[in-house]
């Protein structure tokens, strides 16, 4: 965990902690619940909040995921704004029913389509090095198919606080999925104006003409490295970070592909049934009869092995993205 004395250098972890603290300070109806949150939570994002807000705002819970998520729904229906921490996002599968069937649908099912239901679910996800198949998964694909649910994946020190703000502000059921490696990203701590990060707005990270690359979460960092290498090969990439997986800003991707004619999605999740599939499908549907080259670089459909070295060989990287991008650009006409 990275509590540095030098306040100028901050990590995403710290920025999320302070954003959450600000939001809780600004609205008394916001409460945080979860396992070990009293001591800062599984990843330190709640650090200091118990001391600051006390036990009625920072609620240490038993390891009762179903009870906790049910309670969050009850709190939200009672006018509170619960923020629920899941110890590791892989465990969201234990509350998939609460999330998909209850929290996401509640308003619609009860005839309040425009109503707010401010349940923010947040926690860490993603592969680091050898945490194994139950503490490494990219969870957005498992919840992508759920009407009524927002999904947000921050990727940088710049966008993490803005996205957390926007997710909280939306007052809609939202999964906020914090990649373990993104926590460690650093930057200048000088307060910057927070960029707009409304639900459903992508960020065009880099403008380019040869290829559209889409990447989010930790993959954005890999993608930026890939873009730098590709630039050396004379390939200019338009890099889009959707930030919001649901609602997804397909328009920005489609507009970019309209220009580049080539699409590469770089995704950490298992390839089959990942978000990349939907992105490719939308783009294909958007250009009927137009010759496209599009592909995905993602994790194969295998479990995360515990051995970090084994895992490293199957996680998608900048090098894989470069390789795939060059193939798309060079061999476009082979077929």
């Amino acid at each position: 965990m990275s509590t540095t004395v030098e306040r100028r250098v901050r990590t995403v972890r710290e920025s999320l902690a302070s954003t959450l603290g600000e939001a809780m300070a600004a609205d008394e109806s916001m409460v945080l619940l979860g396992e070990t949150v009293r001591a800062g939570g599984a990843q330190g994002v709640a650090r200091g909040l118990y001391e600051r807000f006390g036990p009625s705002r920072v609620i240490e819970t038993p390891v009762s995921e179903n009870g906790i998520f049910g309670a969050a729904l009850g709190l939200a229906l009672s006018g509170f704004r619960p923020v629920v921490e899941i110890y590791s996002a892989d465990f969201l599968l234990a509350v998939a029913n609460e999330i998909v069937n209850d929290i996401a649908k509640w308003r619609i099912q009860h005839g309040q389509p425009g109503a707010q239901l401010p349940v923010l679910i947040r926690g860490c996800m993603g592969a680091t090095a050898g945490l194994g198949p139950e503490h490494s998964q990219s969870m957005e694909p498992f919840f992508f198919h759920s009407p009524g649910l927002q999904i947000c994946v921050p990727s940088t020190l710049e966008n993490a606080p803005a996205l957390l703000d926007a997710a909280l502000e939306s007052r809609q059921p939202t999964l906020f999925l914090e990649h373990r490696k993104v926590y460690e990203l650093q930057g200048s701590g000088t307060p910057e104006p927070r960029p707009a990060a409304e639900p459903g707005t992508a960020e065009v990270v880099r403008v380019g003409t040869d290829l559209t690359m889409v990447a989010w979460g930790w993959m954005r960092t890999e993608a930026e490295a890939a873009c730098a290498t590709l630039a050396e090969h004379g390939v200019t990439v338009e890099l889009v970070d959707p930030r919001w997986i649901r609602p997804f800003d397909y328009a920005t991707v489609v507009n970019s592909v309209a220009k580049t004619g080539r699409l590469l999605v770089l995704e950490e999740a298992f390839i089959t049934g990942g978000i990349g599939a939907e992105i490719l499908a939308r783009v294909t549907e958007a250009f009927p009869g137009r010759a496209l080259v599009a592909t995905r670089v993602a994790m194969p459909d295998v479990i995360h092995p515990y051995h970090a070295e084994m895992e490293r060989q199957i996680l998608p990287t900048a090098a894989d993205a470069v390789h795939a991008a060059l193939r798309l650009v060079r061999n476009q006409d082979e077929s």
Partner: protein
Amino acid sequence: MGAPSGDDLLRLYELMVESRAFDDACMDLLAAGEEVPHFHSGAGQEALSIGSVAMLRPTDEIVYTHRGYAHLLAKGVPLATIAADMFYRRGGTNGARGGVMHVSRPDLGVPGREGVFGTRFGLAAGLALAHSLRGDDGVAVCFYGEAAGARGPLYEALNMAVLWNLPVVFVAENNGWSVNSRTEWLFPGGRMSTVWSGFGIPVTEVDGNDLTAVSSATARAVSRARAGGGPSVIEGLTYRLHPHIWWDDASYVPARELQAWWEKDPIPRQRRVLEEEGMAADRLDDVERRARNRVAETIEAVRGAPFVEWDLEVGVEGVR
């Protein structure tokens, strides 16, 4: 509020009759080949539902069941609203999106209902936690049958409720069946709540067909919760007098057992109680007649009303 008496008792009796009249009307419609979407008869269980819910204030919440007409009526939801939701007519609470399975009136302490059983328990704990955090004296009451009662979230929620001393009452509706499975096949000894005595909280078994017993037990549990005494569990022993739902022929129900429970029907039973307390028979007749007429008129009016109109863009859409 203690256990009711006098005019209060009469009011509860009227609710029971009203609920049964609605139930009968739905059964009649079904028998006539009409559609009564998602109707699950609550006949036979009115004493348990009404006796408990009537002990609550509007600021208390209930989490009701799929046979929840009596619960809803007792919480103050007008029959016309329930019927409008059921028949997808204007005037319901959810514009045909949730039908009678998802009636909600947050202003009356009815936040809604979940369809995949289990979430209700944490939900009720959350409602109770909200009271506790706000420092008001509201209470949440969570009803559940044999199905939900075997799901793990009940344990999780009870553990939290005991740990945090939450103002919540769990009411187990032991009505002999979960679809076609006997309670004894699902719970050791056929009892749904004895295990929870292990938490050291009050666990009360009541004759669920005895309105007075139910209301006393609930009043006790609710005032305890209201006063900061924490959670408790009530198990009402009752019986599902009709099949699970329209397509069920209930051929698995032993005729003699069913007959015995019809003889314990809480409505005539409660009428006898009232008569014994000196209530005039014609006053009771009158209450019954008025309730039945009101129900008949309401159903006719609702079924004659226009269907909900929907805008697919707005009406059924998710957030995106």
